[in-house]
């Protein structure tokens, strides 16, 4: 039987898996240092490229994983939920999430991880998300028409650009690697489990 498997799970199994996946989600976010608003916002001042590196490592890992699994016939991509494209609300919503990020210091997922280790500013940010969610729901009449604008359905980059999926995957990987290369050159060195590599190896890390 091919993946995804959600239809074969009973509700308790489904919810347990949801919590388990969330556990690893939160664990790796916190491991990356994303429980600190200072570290997160340092990306926007080019002081720390961890946000870009972690995000794009995760994206290309999952993207290549899905590409290979579907190529091997194990993962049926037509059964996988792909966020539908609504161009204008995604543009404006993205600008708002970006503004909220630099003003508030977090995004929703990272603020949960930060609040979990005791960051009070993250707790306040969470209160803000709850208020914002409430305001959106209450003012839905104002947002509804705009939130449906620019609808292009479930549209993927390969379909949109009319390029083979494998080529798009390769392109995204190359863009990510180019970004990593630029980041490493601007930072000079990197650490792997207590050992320092690259330029300035042996010098104590500035991170953490």
């Amino acid at each position: 039987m091919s993946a995804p498997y959600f239809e074969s799970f009973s509700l308790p199994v489904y919810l347990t898996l949801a919590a388990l996946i969330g556990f690893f989600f939160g664990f790796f976010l916190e491991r990356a240092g994303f429980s600190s608003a200072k570290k997160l916002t340092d990306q926007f001042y080019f002081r720390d490229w961890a946000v870009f590196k972690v995000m794009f490592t995760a994206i290309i890992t999952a993207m290549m994983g899905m590409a290979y699994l579907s190529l091997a016939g194990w993962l049926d991509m037509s059964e996988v939920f792909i966020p539908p494209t609504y161009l204008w609300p995604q543009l404006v919503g993205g600008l708002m999430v970006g503004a909220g990020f630099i003003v508030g210091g977090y995004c929703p997922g990272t603020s949960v991880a930060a609040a979990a280790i005791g960051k009070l500013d993250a707790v306040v940010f969470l209160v803000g998300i709850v208020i914002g969610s409430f305001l959106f729901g209450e003012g839905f009449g104002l947002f509804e028409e705009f939130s449906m604008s620019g609808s292009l359905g479930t549209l993927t980059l390969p379909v949109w650009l009319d390029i083979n999926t494998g080529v798009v995957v390769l392109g995204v990987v190359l863009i990510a690697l180019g970004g990593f290369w630029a980041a490493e050159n601007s930072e000079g060195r990197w650490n792997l489990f207590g050992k320092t590599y690259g330029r300035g190896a042996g010098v104590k890390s500035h991170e953490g």
Partner: protein
Amino acid sequence: MSGTSIPTPSPAGEAAMRSPDQPGTWFQRVFRQKEYWPPYAAGFGLGLTLLAAFVLMGEGLGASSAFSRGVAALLGAVAPEHAAASDFWSRYVGGGQSPLINFMVFEVAGLAVGGFVSGWLAGRLGIAVDKGPGIAKGTRYGMALTGGIITGIGARLARGCTSGQALSGGASLAAGSFVFMLAVFGAGFVGAFFLRRKWL
């Protein structure tokens, strides 16, 4: 780090933390150091988690929608007629099932536990406020509240946040998610210029 209190680490954590090159057990070196993981290691773990979500659950990770579901559940309890009459809240409260019986809600609950366990192992637990050096805590709270409200509205408008759109939509090559991603970074960099005295 600008946290105001630094928690006392456990003896094992302290030993592992003295020097990054100091030998210790594998577990101590990987999990008990106060230093963050290298971004590529954490990102790879996050990517495998994201892949597991797609393969097992048929959808990627998310965070913001759990908060809408939480508010919907609250409204369903205190003002059921109001929730049922709303075009937005009725999506969550209808159907006879609690809006909290959901992938994203349980996932975000797990997220909090996972973040706590990671911070606990590394000795990073402690009540603290993360802020730029030049501002008061009250200013930081005001920024956090404002940013949270903007994020809460923006994430619903975009049907997801950095998790549901940028990570999950990016990995599944959704066209609109790349527009979202560019918008987040664009607004972040522009906003950073105007807020440099708050953060640096």
